């Protein structure tokens, strides 16, 4: 009873769970336009994930597996379903998640047949794979109800059905490490546990066997996604778009969301996007305000590009941005290769490259 009254009061007063606020991009997340200065290595139709064995760079582009050699891209093979996650295995092998429902392991990327297949019925939206040790893979599954490509609906339905699975390559068994996550999207081994991105709760949690998830980094102003190890310790964390008060408001309006999902084309929902500026039908696309006599364009950002460099403890050191007026939005994957950071900006369908040298010095102040 008291909880109901409190909830009602909070809705009226805009407090507690009904607070519609977003953290600011400051400190280590201070905006810049570094991602806009990145070199475009390749433009693809539907880039999704990256993997490297140290020599080759593999790109998941829809159902095709591409290899990038210098600036030349070649198709290694294609699958019957879109690739939703990639992971390089020791010994030159490759793990591939297909359509979020199946994980196949190949001894060589060009092999016809996988040597191991995990097609657990629990799999629904496997969106990231990471190698825990020589014999174990960790997979994050964003949602038990919405598919990999239907992440916006998963957010709008306020689903908290993300899971983390341990895939034992020896015994070919699948074990659930965590469940009830707000869209698990990306994982990386961290000590004895696994660092997992929880997109809808805007945080990183440490998932360790036998313990509830522990928050490592919270209150991010973005929706975090995949994680990879960085040289010199720490991690690269990508964020596929920024949070806005507009979306936060919509998330607290169930009736509005229900009607929006029922009646409006998903492309024009008031929801985060990987790219924007495509149509006049997009919400709040052409707003402006008058400040000190000058009309300034303004709109809540629908899409954004961001990758965050974390230290070994999972705390932000600096970040690379593509702001609202940029193009390289919807960053979903980042991986170090040689002396470069290779990224996928899913919005424009680009594979980007940034030299790592000097990045820390430039942004770590």
């Amino acid at each position, binding site marked *: 009873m008291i909880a109901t009254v409190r909830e009602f009061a909070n809705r009226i007063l*805009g407090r507690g769970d009904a607070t519609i*606020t977003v953290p600011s991009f400051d400190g280590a997340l201070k905006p810049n336009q570094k991602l806009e200065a990145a070199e475009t290595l390749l433009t693809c139709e539907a880039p999704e994930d990256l993997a490297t064995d140290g020599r080759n760079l593999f790109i998941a582009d829809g159902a095709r597996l591409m290899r990038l050699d210098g600036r030349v891209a070649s198709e290694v093979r294609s699958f019957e379903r879109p690739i939703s996650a990639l992971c390089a295995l020791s010994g030159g092998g490759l793990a591939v998640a297909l359509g979020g429902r199946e994980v196949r392991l190949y001894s060589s990327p060009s092999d016809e047949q996988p040597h191991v297949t995990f097609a657990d019925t629990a799999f629904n939206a496997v969106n990231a794979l990471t190698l825990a040790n020589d014999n174990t893979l960790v997979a994050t599954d964003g949602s038990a109800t919405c598919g990999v490509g239907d992440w916006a609906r998963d957010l709008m339905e306020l689903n908290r059905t993300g899971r983390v699975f341990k895939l034992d390559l020896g015994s070919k068994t699948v074990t659930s490490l965590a469940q009830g996550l707000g869209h698990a999207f990306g994982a990386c081994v961290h000590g004895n546990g696994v660092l997992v991105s929880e997109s809808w709760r805007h945080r990183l949690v440490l998932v360790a066997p036998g313990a509830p998830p522990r928050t490592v980094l919270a209150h991010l102003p973005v929706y975090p996604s995949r994680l990879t190890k960085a040289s010199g310790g720490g991690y690269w964390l990508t964020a596929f778009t920024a949070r806005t008060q507009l979306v936060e408001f919509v998330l607290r309006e169930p009736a509005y969301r229900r009607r929006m999902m029922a009646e409006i084309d998903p492309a024009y929902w008031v929801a985060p996007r990987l790219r924007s500026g495509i149509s006049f039908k997009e919400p709040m696309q052409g707003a402006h305000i008058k400040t000190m006599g000058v009309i300034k364009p303004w709109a809540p950002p629908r899409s954004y590009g961001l990758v965050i460099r974390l230290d070994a403890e999972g705390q932000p050191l600096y970040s690379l941005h593509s702001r609202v007026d940029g193009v390289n939005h919807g960053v979903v994957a980042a991986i170090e290769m040689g002396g470069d950071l290779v990224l996928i900006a899913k919005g424009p369908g680009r594979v980007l490259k940034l030299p790592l040298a000097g990045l820390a010095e430039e942004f770590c102040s």
Partner: protein
Amino acid sequence: MSDIALSLRSATKLYAGVPAIDGVDFDLRRGEIHALVGENGAGKSTLTKVMAGVVTLTSGTMTVDGADVAPRTPLEARNLGIAMVFQENSLVPTMTVAQNLFLGQEKFYNRLRGIYIAAQQFLQSLNFDVTPTATVSGLGAAKKQMVEIARAVLHRAKVIIFDEPTASLTPEEKKYFFDLVRDLKKRGVSIVFISHALEEALLLADRITVLRDGKHVVTDDAAKFDRAAIIQAMVGRDLSNTLYGARKGTVRPAGARVLTVQNLKMAPMVKNNSLSVFAGQITGVFGLVGAGRTETFKIVSGVLKRDFFHGGEILLHDKPVRYRVPAPAVKAGIAYVTEDRKVEGFFETSPIAQNIYLGLLSKFPNGRMILSRRETDAVGKTWIQKLKVRAIGDHGKVVELSGGNQQKVVIAKSLVQEPDLIIFDEPTRGVDVGAIVEIHELINRLADEGKAVVVISSYLPEIMALSDRILVSRQGKVVEEFSALDATEERIMYAAIH
């Protein structure tokens, strides 16, 4: 008639046997602007209070227009043509401008309309854009200053003394004030003004007098001084390289996020403000007066309340907090060092140790019924030594201290709470150069110890010298962030205005 409007010879004033001014000779020429500079505790305020009849000399003489005088009250001084405009204005906030102007000159029967008309004519003759029917509490700092000046002129003052007149004015208001003072000079009024902003003294004054430790050091034409020479005369050592001047070559790396402010609102001053503060860093917050900086951090520390509806969110160590009064904020580890120390900072007639101990009291979960005098004295003594508070005796009262030492007491009162987050609001306003260096060292030390430190300042050199990261506030919210390494005065000011 002599060229000298007012003079003091061998002026000495003792407080409890300790000289506040000691054998000072001072001449004020007719129609000149005379700047009085010196460290806090140098005796500037005492000297001007003697002139204005607030205190009387222990020994020495004072002459006005060649006649020996010894005003014992401000009224006597006013009758001699000497008026003083205090740093904290002496207007009655609930009365109108006109009523304040004629306060003390009321007749048995007063026709309000007549007062307003007379005030209107008088203000127009001074070219002051102030409405006589406006209530003083609704006026800005500059307009209040105008009313104070108008009142002094109305009383036919031949000598007007200004104590820190520009401390609370915006750059535009300062310019307007300087024009006013020059206009008064043209009318033949002699001006004495105390200022810690040495650039103002150099810009405005005809002559400058420097006092140090209650003694006269030098008086000369302003043209013969530069900033470094004044500072050297004030402190007896060259501080020009350490005071504000040194630009940061490195910045401290950010530690854990201590404070997150999200979409904070308090109409009309704070509008959707968001910012973060990190441990082990000094976060400087710059903005023009009215940018909502002080209000934001007063909300954080429970002094003010955010909007009742949709007022935003404050997270301390990633946990939402909402303080309705300061005590729980203090318990949670937030200390706010006020910009208005005389009103909000201390009980001025209480001993220093008691004031410092008061800060500690709010840390006790349920308060304390019985206080230990021994503990109070011990805590006070420790912090007086730590912060080098220069007091007359161990049981001195705060009112007897100079501005810089009063500020140190306010800081001690906050630090005794052992906070994680310390917010300094204008930490060196009205503080002399020697104390500025000490306070800056203290602030840096706190950040080095891993505390999250916020410095709100309207003085750009201070922000640039202290801060590791600089947040610029405009119209109620933070609009720009700079690293101390790539900030310039021009960039910061541009962000603050445009």
